[in-house]
């Protein structure tokens, strides 16, 4: 099962490598991982997407909680939540395909943020699935670079991850 785990982490050197090290040492899988400081400079917020059986996911959250720098964590996928990822994709855009790409970007509510005679850079946000679908839709087009930020997320409503 796919899970999105959100973590409040002490904003200290080495905290990230401790989390990454835990995953590699115990053979857990990381699909994506993002981390950045929060409004409280002493805290970073990490979003981690992983997959595994329920038993493994239980171990993952327990082991993460054991890390001294992990202040708090939640499994966003346990409740209603918003999941977003940013895609920057550079594609070969010449001739008829220029219109075609523009149209696709509009359908997916993407924006073309850089244009040259032969390339476009498109910016798109959404769930991982939506980004996958967009890349899929570009099938006839030559992709030069794909850059994905990894998933960020937040729970809906009153529920929150804070101290």
């Amino acid at each position: 099962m796919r899970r999105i785990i959100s973590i409040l982490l002490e904003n200290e050197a080495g905290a990230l490598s401790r989390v990454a090290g835990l995953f590699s040492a115990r053979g857990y899988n990381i699909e994506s991982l993002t981390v950045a400081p929060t409004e409280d400079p002493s805290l970073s917020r990490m979003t981690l997407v992983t997959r595994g059986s329920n038993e493994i996911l239980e171990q993952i959250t327990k082991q993460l909680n054991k890390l001294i720098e992990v202040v708090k964590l939640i499994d966003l996928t346990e409740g209603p939540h918003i999941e977003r990822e940013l895609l920057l994709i550079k594609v070969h855009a010449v001739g008829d395909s220029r219109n075609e790409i523009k149209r696709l970007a509009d359908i997916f509510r993407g924006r073309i943020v850089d244009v040259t005679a032969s390339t476009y850079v498109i910016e798109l946000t959404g769930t991982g699935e939506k980004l996958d679908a967009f890349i899929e839709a570009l099938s006839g087009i030559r992709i030069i670079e794909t850059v994905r930020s990894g998933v960020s997320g937040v729970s809906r409503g009153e529920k929150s991850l804070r101290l």
Partner: protein
Amino acid sequence: MELTGAEIVVECLKEEGVEYLFGYPGGAVLHIYDALYKQDHIKHILVRHEQAATHAADGYARSTEKPGVVLVTSGPGATNAITGIATAYMDSIPMVIITGQVPTHAIGSDAFQEVDAVGITRPCVKHNFLVKDVKDLASTIKKAFFIATSGRPGPVVVDVPKDVTAAKTVFEYPKQISLRSYSPVERGHIGQIRRAVKLMLSAKRPMLYTGGGVILGNSAPELTELTRKLGYPITNTLMGLGGYPATDKQFLGMLGMHGTYEANMAMHHCDVLIAIGARFDDRVTGNVKKFCPGAQIVHVDIDPASISKSVRVDVPIVGSVKSVLQDMIRLLDETGEKPDATALAEWWKQIEEWRATDCLKYDRASEIIKPQMVVEKFYELSEGQAFLTSDVGQHQMWAAQFYKFDKPRRWINSGGLGTMGFGLPAAMGVQFAHPDALVGCVTGEGSIQMCIQELSTCLQYRLPIKIINLNNRYLGMVRQWQEFFYQSRYSMSYMEALPDFVKLAEAYGHVGMRIEKPSDVEPAIKEALRLKDRLVFMDFITDQKENVYPMIPAGAGLNEMILV
């Protein structure tokens, strides 16, 4: 008044009540050694290899209720300490290891004797720190001791760059420390404990299975009280020996791969399993799919991550073993209910039948010295009062099987990591902690050579350890597996070119004895015990082909033991 970082390190250790510091000097820690030179509160013990410093501190910690403390230099000092840190980590031993580091400005430049100590120790510590500013030094050391000794204990590394030990600041040791991200639970959930007690009382075939958590949590008295109250059979893991008196009739011996027939059979057939401070290690469970097939399981552990890690349990209780046991005892008294006496009598009858197999029997009339007999004799002659360390291999299992530990913290061995070379330095730590006690070290000719240099340390500090070398000229445990599972192809398990251990002991200034006949075993041990203030190296020439029984082969269940 301003102190240097080096002086602050020493002051912090004093504040923590550190008695012994096990270490080895080098460039990065010279300021600290200079500060140590100028005081006489903390006794620094100079080992001969940093691995031994960590094992000695570990032995000290295991035999007391205090953390072990280590000081080593950067680079090779830190890497040599790794084995000992990992050993302590696997067995949850509280330890603080201070490693020197190159100056902060040189970090990352591949400076002389630079190693990323925080990175290299990360997977085998409870936590670690790099101190970059002398102002953080005291509070970091405070945190290190707090983390190492609280919750599920473990080793904590504090890496201190050389310039930080030279820099000055006002020294202030925090009285208390609180970490917003770390607050180990103490009390177990009372509702869960109530459920557990109810389940325990409903059992027809109950079994208590307890581990190192009982020892680390200083809860042997509570465990004994509970077990006696219930009248249930109990087994201890390798790490848990001494948590319940081994000479008591409710004790079924150790369980697991080389556990007793009665303990493993009772595990397999029980209907309620009460696991306390034990972690369902693979050496205990055998094949998890076949583990305790008919049992409902209660599991008490201070570490939530230990619960349902390999075996799913029915009543998980997170809390310190001591407080949970106290709650259990109280609830039992309050309910006034008693276990089902008829069922229990029936269960004991079955257990006594298993016990009658006498699974630890061996040839007592042998013309060659049987290793089991040596341990048994040492047990008798030391009246069960010794602290016993061991290395890793067959001798370790025989020590665990044949020395009956009635008290906690007497049996000191590397259970989790299985570190050969642990025994002798660990015995040093134990002897420092208990200068007047009898400290034995059961070892093999393979293991003892992994830290043999410590015989020199033992001379320097006059440590009268009694070394019991069960010399079978084989890496016996390896040989046993090769005999059983590789059609006796003894690949690299024969120990050739062994030293003359008697001369070796003498060369280090100790007493050496070689014992070759069964009839000489008792007189030799008596003589060794008489030499109260000398280290005696007893080299017992034992049966080369003796195997450890019973044995559960890999992939088998606890009821599928190979018996003698």
